[in-house]
């Protein structure tokens, strides 16, 4: 019994230590933003990597999510003659939940893994130490631009995903389910509030930070050659995905709990 409790205690202590390391890593990296130099070229490059190159995959998932949502809500609501709510359900679900969450998960898979895979070999081949010997703080040069790019770019991506997702719902609503186009668009706007879109964008900013942080953290501390780098990319994607779902609940609670 005592051995069992000791094992649970050891796991809990390891969890606390890992959380502490992650928080210190994020804090030290963010603290570099308050003193020069800042690297705008690197930030811009990372914004293009995260935003522009994620557009196809985010657009595709958003349009199909909107389409499925319209179909599912129609078949569900038709059981109690509430088909008219389809447009409202689509726009609220996309802007509040599905837009930011699906974009966050897609970007975690595409960008988080790429960040870990890019930074990991730099650790293994001494490039991070080389940065330090060239009077360049590795956290300032490698981590901060990615964190900032994640926070700035994800909301833009989510805004695009929201529009494409709602458009996917519109396509199904009008061309398959036979809604009047004008009525569908009216219903889409009617119950949509600023807070719905803003909460999604706040989620997006937080998810962007999480994806970049987990990619950088696991890449920065990867060990043991190719195997270590592979492990780092897996950890980056899994931990970012789990954290996105946890923080999705936390932010939803903060915005909408009465």
């Amino acid at each position: 019994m005592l051995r069992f409790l000791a094992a649970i205690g050891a796991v809990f202590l390891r969890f606390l230590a890992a959380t502490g390391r992650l928080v210190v890593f994020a804090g030290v990296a963010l603290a570099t933003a308050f003193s020069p130099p800042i690297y705008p070229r690197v930030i811009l490059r990372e914004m293009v990597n995260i935003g522009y190159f994620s557009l196809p995959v985010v657009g595709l998932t958003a349009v199909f999510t909107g389409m499925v949502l319209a179909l599912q809500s129609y078949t569900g609501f038709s059981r109690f003659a509430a088909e008219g709510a389809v447009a409202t359900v689509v726009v609220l679900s996309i802007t509040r939940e599905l837009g930011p969450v699906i974009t966050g998960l897609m970007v975690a898979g595409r960008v988080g893994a790429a960040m870990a895979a890019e930074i990991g070999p730099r650790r293994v081949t001494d490039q991070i130490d080389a940065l330090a010997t060239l009077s360049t703080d590795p956290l300032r040069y490698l981590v901060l631009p990615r964190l900032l790019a994640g926070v700035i770019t994800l909301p833009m991506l989510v805004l695009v995903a929201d529009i494409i997702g709602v458009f996917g719902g519109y396509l199904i609503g009008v061309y398959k389910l036979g809604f009047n186009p004008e009525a569908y668009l009216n219903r889409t706007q009617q119950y949509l509030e600023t807070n719905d879109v803003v909460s999604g964008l706040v989620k997006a900013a937080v998810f962007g930070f999480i994806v970049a942080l987990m990619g950088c953290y696991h890449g920065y501390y990867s060990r043991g050659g190719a195997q270590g780098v592979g492990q780092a990319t897996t950890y980056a994607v899994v931990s970012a995905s789990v954290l996105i779902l946890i923080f999705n609940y936390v932010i939803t609670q903060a915005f909408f709990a009465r």
Partner: protein
Amino acid sequence: MTRTAVPKISVRRLKKSFGRNRVLDGVDIDCATGESLVIIGGSGTGKSVLVKCILGLLQPEEGSIRIDGAETVGLRRTARERLMQKFGMLFQGSALFDSLRVWENVAFGLIQGRGMERQAAKKIALAKLASVGLGPEIGELRPAELSGGMQKRVALARAIAAEPEILFFDEPTTGLDPIMADVINDLIVKCVREVGTTAVSITHDMASARKIGDRIAMLHGGRIVWEGSATEIDRSGNPYVDQFVNGRAEGPIQMEIRAA
């Protein structure tokens, strides 16, 4: 070689462990201004760890490291960044940034570290590349397009680009053929003499140690077991040094070999 009262680098009672493995166990060593010190020792004896501690890339548990008489252990980030401007380092695997072109690698410390304008930094980078025997056309290539010897030369050009006060060389000739190794040794000697910097090299290549070192120290068991001028190495009278220099399996240094 100019000797001054205050050593350029002074290491005292330095200790560093990884888990239960104590790698450095009270290292004491000095390096005078303008001197070229070579630290020799077997693989895994902590030569790289010692240099990384001096550079501040690793934190020692105990001991003191003074640069120009000022303590550097426990320096804050900004003070450490300023101190780094005194250093240049050639890494064992060259550690070139593979996403940048060769000239950008050489100019990196000037542009990012010191805020120099790109065109001015490029001029300096191309001049440094020329000083290690590489033409301007090489500057436009990526590191992956270069041979191991050329990568070492680029790494050397990068290390000297900002004309640092102290240069560190980590196994500068490892993995190179004997001729290219000698070319690198000659370039190191030329760079150190031309710029007049203090140099600390770590190697287990004795030909390299004899050529680039004014003074040689041997690290074993976490401590410096012998130090003397490069010309004294063959008559050191130290059994560890004798075994290492002559490359004998028998002697006080026992390699950990286990039957499979």
